[in-house]
């Protein structure tokens, strides 16, 4: 026996409707775009991926037959339930408006997300940063730069290109989300002997992961992973040339040979 279970994805919401005196729960689109479905549970073989056109209301009805009795004839055959996530993807290319690739507002930083940040100030115990972009988890099918037009090569290297949701707010007016990297969260080893001075400098672009949303002022971020850390930096706090990571804690200016200490993300 095969049945589907639909859960809310990005851009959808489960809403209650009254119809003919009955209460019906239905997935409802909250964004303008194309509906996409994807199966979340592994194990089943055939998935009938139905991608419908634009719908505004009552996408699918939830089958709430969970209280059905087991099939009495054959106890060997269990019920197979496929979990399908329904979400709405904003199609920016088709729309004439000059929206940025993957709107930042619909892709806010949440726990576990990878973000690109700029260091604004440092102290002995922490580095304050501002969040510039959120790395998107959904890499396009061919993971190529060409497929989504304005693809940016993944900062941390690795295969293919990740996409980013770039924050459009002004950093001059303090509109960006602020984050905080505590000295214990800079690297995975020798956490209590970290000197922030040898890891970050103001102006560095740091790839970090969101630990928690923190309070209203600061996100809490970490760089305690090989692919996290400083990805772009200039020597002498921006007065010098562009530096490249030569190992995990050294960056070098190719033209002058000058080196500075940083907590670098894993070089390519």
């Amino acid at each position, binding site marked *: 026996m095969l049945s589907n279970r639909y859960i809310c994805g990005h851009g959808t919401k489960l809403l209650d409707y009254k119809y003919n005196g009955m209460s019906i729960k239905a997935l409802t689109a909250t964004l303008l775009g194309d509906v996409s479905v994807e199966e979340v549970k592994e194990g089943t073989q055939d998935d009938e991926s139905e991608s419908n056109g634009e719908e505004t209301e009552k996408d699918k009805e939830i089958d709430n037959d969970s209280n059905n009795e087991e099939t009495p004839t054959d106890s060997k055959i269990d019920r197979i339930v496929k979990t399908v996530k329904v979400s709405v993807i904003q199609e920016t290319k088709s729309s004439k408006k000059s929206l940025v690739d993957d709107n930042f507002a619909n892709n806010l930083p949440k726990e576990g997300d990878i973000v690109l940040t700029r260091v604004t100030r440092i102290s002995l115990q922490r580095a304050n940063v501002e969040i510039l972009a959120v790395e998107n988890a959904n890499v396009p099918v061919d993971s190529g730069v060409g497929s989504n037009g304005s693809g940016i090569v993944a900062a941390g290297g690795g295969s293919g290109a990740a996409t980013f949701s770039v924050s459009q707010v002004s950093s001059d007016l303090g509109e960006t989300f602020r984050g905080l990297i505590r000295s214990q969260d800079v690297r995975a080893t020798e956490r209590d002997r970290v000197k922030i001075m040898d890891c970050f400098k103001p102006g560095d672009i740091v790839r970090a992961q969101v630990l928690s949303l923190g309070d209203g002022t600061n996100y809490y971020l970490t760089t305690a992973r090989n692919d996290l850390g400083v990805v772009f930096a200039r*020597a002498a706090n921006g007065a010098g040339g562009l530096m490249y990571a030569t190992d995990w804690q050294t960056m070098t200016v190719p033209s002058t040979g000058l080196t500075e200490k940083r907590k670098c993300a894993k070089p390519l």
Partner: protein
Amino acid sequence: MQPQTVVVLPGDKLPLSPSSSQSALTLGPGIYCNPQTHEIIPTQAGIAHITHPKPHRTQLYVDYDSKRYIPCVGDLVIGCIVGTQGGDSYRVSLSNFSNDVSLPYMAFPNASKKNRPTLVKGDLVYAKVASAEKELEATLECLDPGFGILEDGMVLDCPLRFARMLLFEGDDKQKKEGTSSLLRLLARHTKFEIAIGINGKIWIKCDTVSDTLACYRIVLECCKSPVSQYDSIVKRHFKEVAKVVEE
């Protein structure tokens, strides 16, 4: 090679001899090295000193006057405790309207986690700058004898060059005795204790308040006067104070 002294303005070309380009350069205050072109230029107006303490070694700095203090490692400074921070350090103000610096509890002799120093807000401390990174707030330490709280006495503000002159004049062996001997002149009239902060603060304490006051006024006036007048200033102020005391 002879030491050179020239008056320079910001952006001037420094009169470096070609041979000094091969020697190791040590850049001091007022000199800037452009990180992209490696050009060395002065950024302050004053007298540039180019010395050769050893062969193949050149030292460069500009002696300029200012009233705003920027911490450097090893400086002896007088600060005022303005509060505590995070339960492990004091916040110390070295000069008004500048960023505060921190003085960790552990930077005192015999300090431990349980045995904390007993300074309170408003106390004066004589301390040494332990670290001064330009991106970070500077930290002080009071580890050696002589550092620590300054009790009673009076503090005055003076230009940084005057404080440097007072603190280091004894080090200069070549100078003739009596040329810049403000401290020696004061010692002829009274016993006093003095602490000189490179951040432009001078603390003076005598046995009597009238002597302290006289010293305070003398140092304040000497900041703005040529060395040749020090003798008359010292005599005049002590005379004035003595007159008031008699009355």
